[in-house]
């Protein structure tokens, strides 16, 4: 679908490349020729043989197929953890798509999407969260709707808790039916 555009960017590291710009990066690259592939748009791919320990930050969309430990900061971009990707890190991004494994807290300003076979072990903070059937998730989800009340149309809330009395049509105790 995406055609590699070799004429635009060679493998030489631009200043903004997440794989090259990290502030505290201790990368070990068993296959140095594989780590980055620049596509026609601002999008970077970290190959599956790449191991990065430290802080990863940048301003391009990023796909990780390798291992990353530490912190990933892509506040304005989309982070995709590919099926081979294994992340042990605090993750901050605009959107996060998980097809691989993430251990650590994930914060996204737009959306976290855990796909089938994707795994997240950690807390998620994002206004939108999608978890596919077959995905693994253990942790908490905070959709950060501070100041927003659930719409009344979603339900007919009974504001009085049961301890303060039930409406006459809903007597306490056992009911049989339906």
């Amino acid at each position: 679908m995406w055609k590699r555009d070799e004429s635009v960017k060679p493998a030489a590291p631009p200043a903004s490349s997440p794989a090259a710009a990290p502030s505290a990066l201790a990368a070990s690259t068993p296959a140095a020729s594989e780590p980055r592939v620049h596509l026609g748009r601002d999008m970077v791919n970290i190959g599956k043989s790449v191991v990065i320990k430290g802080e990863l930050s940048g301003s391009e969309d990023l796909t990780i197929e390798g291992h990353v430990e530490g912190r990933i900061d892509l506040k304005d971009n989309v982070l995709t953890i590919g099926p081979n990707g294994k992340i042990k890190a605090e993750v901050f991004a605009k959107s996060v798509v998980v097809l691989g494994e993430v251990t650590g807290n994930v914060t996204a300003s737009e959306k976290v999407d855990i796909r089938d076979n994707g795994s997240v072990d950690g807390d998620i903070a994002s206004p939108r969260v999608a978890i596919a059937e077959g995905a693994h998730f253990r942790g908490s989800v905070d959709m950060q709707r501070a100041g927003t009340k659930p719409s009344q149309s979603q339900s007919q809330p009974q504001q009085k808790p049961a301890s303060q009395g039930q409406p006459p049509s809903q007597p306490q105790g056992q009911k049989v039916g339906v």
Partner: protein
Amino acid sequence: MAETTRSLTELFGFGSRRATDAEPAAEPVASAVESSYPTKALHKFIASLQGNDNPLLLDLGPVVGSNVTFFGEQLGCRLRVEDIAKDIDRHVKDGTLEQLPEFLARRFTQIPGTVDGVLCWDLLDYLDRPAAQALATALSALLKPEGCLLGLFSTAESREAVYTKYVIVDESTLRYRTYPASRPRQRSLLNGDIIKLFKDLRVTDSFLMKSKVREMLFRKPAPRN
């Protein structure tokens, strides 16, 4: 009355298959893809959460994406997913079921008295008595005063080794989706047994559904001054 109940049930339907009088409710089995059933307790449980700002909800079942969306996006809950079924499976596989009560007693890391609601679903049916008691005690401690717990209890004996994912269709409908378990339900808990398990909580509602599931709502009483 039965007619009225059925009419209301149909009124809430969204075209999904559901149990009716004409078509007796079958117990969900492994071969069933999924079936939808009415629920009476869920909307009361939700109503109890809506009095709180950003309520903290503990879901003990397997993660269901649409439930996360329902509680998180639509109701503004902070949701904590703790899949107890996986814990049971692991202990069965490792042959350490005798350690399960102790494990469950220390399973939760939340501060006692901080949880607004617990979705216990039907997990107690899969536990032996000591483990069920340990889980019930731990959950009771986690709940805030006035916090609410929703439990489902099968009234039919079944030796089929399946868990059920309860997918929320809307406030009055649950879709039951079965998947393989490492052990079947242990026994049907009687009403009195359930109440004893949650002796620190008060039963506020109990519904015996045609799906052979007893839905029970518990509430933690506020401390008396």
